[in-house]
C-alpha cells in the first residue's frame, strides 16, 4: 500500500501543469464551426438544442428508422441492443441493461441518438426528431405516458430510476489492499481440481484451435471432470443459452407464421418443434410446396448447417418454397434462431 501512495505522489508531481508560452500554431475556430461540431449534451442540459417531440411522433420514427435492429418495442433483434424493460434484473444472473433499467441519465439517450443513430445514417435526424424518439424511448420504458411531449423546457425534470446506483471507481481502496498481500511460492495447495473446461462448450471459432500449417489444439480426450460441463449435451445439439436467448428475440419475425413449444399447431407455416435434426417436409398435416416435397424425397435433413443456408435466403436455397420470409441479413440472427429452435428438441415441444 505504501508503494501505492508513493506512486500517487510521484504522479502528482509529474502532473503539475507547466505554464508555457503558446507556440502560435493553429487558428481560432469560428463560432459557426464550433456550433457545427459541438453537439454534445450533458445531464444538466448543457448543449441541449431548442425543440420538442411527442411520444406519438416518436413511435412512427422509431418503427420506421430503429425497429429493424432494436425491435418495435425496443426488445432488440438478434444481438442488437435491447432498449426497454429489464427492470429489477440487475441483481439477477442475466441482467438486462436497458435505458430504463440501467442508464443513469436521459441526456445520454438524446446525445447518443443525435450523434450516432440511426446506425449507418448518423446525424440525419432533426433536433425535433431526436426529441420525439427520446420521448418514445421514455414511453417504452414506462417513464412517461403516451400523451407526453419532451422538450428543451421539461428535459432536465426527468430523472432515471437507476441514477443513484453508480459510484466512482473504488478498486484502489476495496481491492488493491487485498491483492497486495504476501503471496505463496511453495506448497500452496493441498490438491488441485479442474472445475471447468472451455472445449466442452465448443464456442471457439474456426482457426481458434487450428493454424493452417498444421499446429493444433483439439484433442481426442473428452473426459470431463466438471458437473457444470457434464450437463451440456454433446456435439451439434449442445445449446448456447445466451445465443438461444438472442434467438428467441429474433424468432419474433417468424411467429406470425410459425408456432413452437407446447401445443404448437401448423399455421401458414408448419409448427417447428423438433425441426433441428428432422427430415424436411416432415410435419404431419402441413401442405408443403412441391419444391419442399421434392427436397424431402431427395433426403434433405434440417441440420443446423442446412437450416442456416435455408434461412439466409429461403427462395434461393429452395426455389418454389412457400416461405415468404426474405431471409436473415445477418448470419448471426440465423444462428441465434437455430440455437433457439434447438431448445425445442422433441416433436411435442
Amino acid at each position: 500500500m505504501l508503494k501505492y501512495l508513493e506512486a500517487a505522489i510521484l504522479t502528482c508531481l509529474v502532473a503539475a501543469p507547466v505554464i508555457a508560452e503558446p507556440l502560435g500554431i493553429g487558428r481560432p475556430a469560428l463560432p459557426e464551426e464550433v456550433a457545427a461540431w459541438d453537439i454534445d449534451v450533458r445531464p444538466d442540459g448543457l448543449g441541449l438544442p431548442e425543440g420538442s417531440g411527442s411520444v406519438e411522433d416518436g413511435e412512427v420514427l422509431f418503427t420506421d428508422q430503429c425497429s429493424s435492429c432494436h425491435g418495435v418495442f425496443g426488445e432488440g433483434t438478434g444481438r442488437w441492443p435491447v432498449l426497454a424493460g429489464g427492470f429489477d434484473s440487475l441483481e439477477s444472473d442475466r441482467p438486462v441493461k436497458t435505458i430504463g433499467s440501467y442508464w443513469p441519465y436521459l441526456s445520454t439517450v438524446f446525445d447518443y441518438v443525435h450523434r450516432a443513430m440511426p446506425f449507418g445514417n448518423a446525424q440525419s435526424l432533426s433536433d425535433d426528431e431526436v426529441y420525439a424518439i427520446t420521448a418514445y424511448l421514455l414511453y417504452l420504458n414506462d417513464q412517461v405516458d403516451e400523451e407526453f411531449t419532451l422538450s428543451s423546457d421539461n428535459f432536465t425534470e426527468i430523472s432515471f430510476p437507476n441514477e443513484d446506483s453508480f459510484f466512482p471507481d473504488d478498486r484502489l481502496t476495496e481491492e488493491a489492499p487485498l491483492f497486495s498481500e504476501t503471496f505463496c511460492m511453495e506448497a500452496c495447495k493441498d490438491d488441485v481440481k479442474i472445475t471447468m473446461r472451455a472445449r466442452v462448450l465448443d464456442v471457439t471459432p474456426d482457426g481458434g484451435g487450428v493454424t493452417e500449417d498444421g499446429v493444433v489444439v483439439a484433442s481426442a480426450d473428452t473426459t470431463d471432470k466438471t458437473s457444470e460441463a457434464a450437463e451440456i449435451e454433446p456435439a451439434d445439439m449442445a445449446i448456447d443459452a445466451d445465443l438461444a436467448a438472442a434467438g428467441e428475440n429474433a424468432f419474433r419475425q417468424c411467429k406470425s407464421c410459425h408456432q413452437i413449444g407446447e401445443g404448437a399447431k401448423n399455421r401458414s407455416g408448419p409448427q417447428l418443434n423438433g425441426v433441428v435434426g428432422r427430415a424436411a417436409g416432415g410435419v404431419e398435416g402441413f401442405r408443403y410446396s412441391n419444391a419442399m416435397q421434392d427436397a424431402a424425397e431427395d433426403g434433405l435433413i434440417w441440420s443446423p448447417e442446412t437450416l442456416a443456408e435455408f434461412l439466409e435466403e429461403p427462395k434461393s436455397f429452395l426455389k418454389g418454397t412457400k416461405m415468404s420470409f426474405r431471409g436473415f441479413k445477418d448470419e448471426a440472427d440465423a444462428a441465434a434462431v437455430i440455437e433457439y429452435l434447438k431448445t425445442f428438441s422433441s416433436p411435442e415441444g
Partner: protein
Amino acid sequence: MSESTKTTRRGVLKGAFAAGGAFLGAGAARATGADPAIMELQPWSQALGDGVDASPYGMPSPHESHVIRRNVEWLTADPISSVNFTPLHELDGIITPNGLCFERHHAGVAEVDPATHRLMINGLVDTPLVFTMQDLMRFPRENRVYFLECAANSGMEWRGSQLNGCQFTHGMIHNVMYTGVPLRLILEEAGVKTNGKWIMPEGADASAMTRSIPIEKALDDCLVAFKMNGESLRPEQGYPVRLVVPGWEGNMWVKWLRRIEVGDQPWHHREETSKYTDLLENGTARRFTWEMDAKSVITSPSPQAPITHGTGPTVLTGVAWSGRGSIPRVDVTIDGGNNWHQARMSGPSFEKSMHRFYYEFDWDGSPLLLQSRAHDSTGYVQPTKDALRAIRGENSIYHNNGIQTWLVNEKGVAENVEIS
C-alpha cells in the same frame, strides 16, 4: 459449422503429428537417416528469387499466413460494430506489428482524408482553435511505448472458461510505440480556463465516439498520436490521428480524433454509462474505472500453441502489463498453483507497456496446469478469477484481470480451464 470445424481439426491434427514426427522425442533420439532438408537441394538454394520492389510494402512469408487477427462472430450483432483479436500466441518480444493490432470499431473503419481532417479544441479555453495535420506536425513530439487494452478483454470468461485460445481470451490488447504530441501542449495552446476540469475527445467516424477524461490525466501523459511503430497510424487504428491515454481502458483512446472539448463536469455519455461501467452483484455499478489492473497470460504453450516437440527442454513464454506502472516480476506455475517459479523478464521495461517473460523447463510429458501471476511496480499482485468474483460477482463484463489457467495434456495439447 461446428461439424466442419471438427473435421478440419481432426484432419489437421493428424497432419500435425505426421509433420511433427521428426521432432517427437527429439530430446533423446538421433536422426534415423540423413535429413532430406540437408541432402536435397532446395529450390531457393538454386534458383533466383524476386528482385527489389517485387513487394514495395513488404509482407510476411506465406508460411506465416495463419498469423492473423480473428473475430468471434457470435459475440456481436454485426462486424461493423465489433472486435477482433490479436494473435498473441504467435508473437514474441513486446511490440505488436501494426497489421496484427486488434480492431474495435463502433461504426466501421472511417476512411479519413488527412488533407480535410481537422482537430478542434473548444469549450472552457481562452481561444477555441482549429489544427490541420500539418499544424500538429509543428509541435514537439515524443515517442512512447504503451499497451492498449480493451476493458472487455477476457470479459467472456467471467462465468467460466469459454474460449479456447489466448488470442480470444486475451487478444483485445496491443503494444505499440507511438509518436505524438503531448496533449498538454495542444491544450496550453488554446489556454485551459481555471474551471476546466474535464476533457471530452470526440472521433470523426460515424459513431462520433466520446469519453470524459479528467484534466489531470490529459495534462499528464496523454498523447495526440499520428504514428505507430514508426509509420502512420493504420486506418483501423484511427488514421490520421488518435488519442493515447496510457494505462487506461482502450475505449478512451478515441480514434480519428477530430475535437476535444474542455468542460467543468463529465458528460456521462453512452460509453461511460450504458457501457464501460462495472455492474456488481448487488445491482450497483462502478463508473470511471479507467485504469487497467495488472494482468498476464502465458501465450505459449496455450490452446493455439500446443507443445509439439515432445518431452525435454520447453520454453514457456507470455506477456504482462499494468495500467499503473511497470512489471518488475512475473511468477509461473506448471502444477496449478502449488509451486511457483519466478519467471525471467526479457526486453525493455516501460511504464504502462507490455513486458515479456520466459520460464524454461524440462517437460517430462505429464499433464501441466499452467498459470502466470504478474506483480506491478505499485505492489499489486494479479488476483485469481475467484478472488475477483468474490468482490464483483460475474456480471461486470469489464476489467477481468484474473489469473488464466491452461491445461496441457500428455500429448502437449492445451485447453482453457479453471481450477480449484
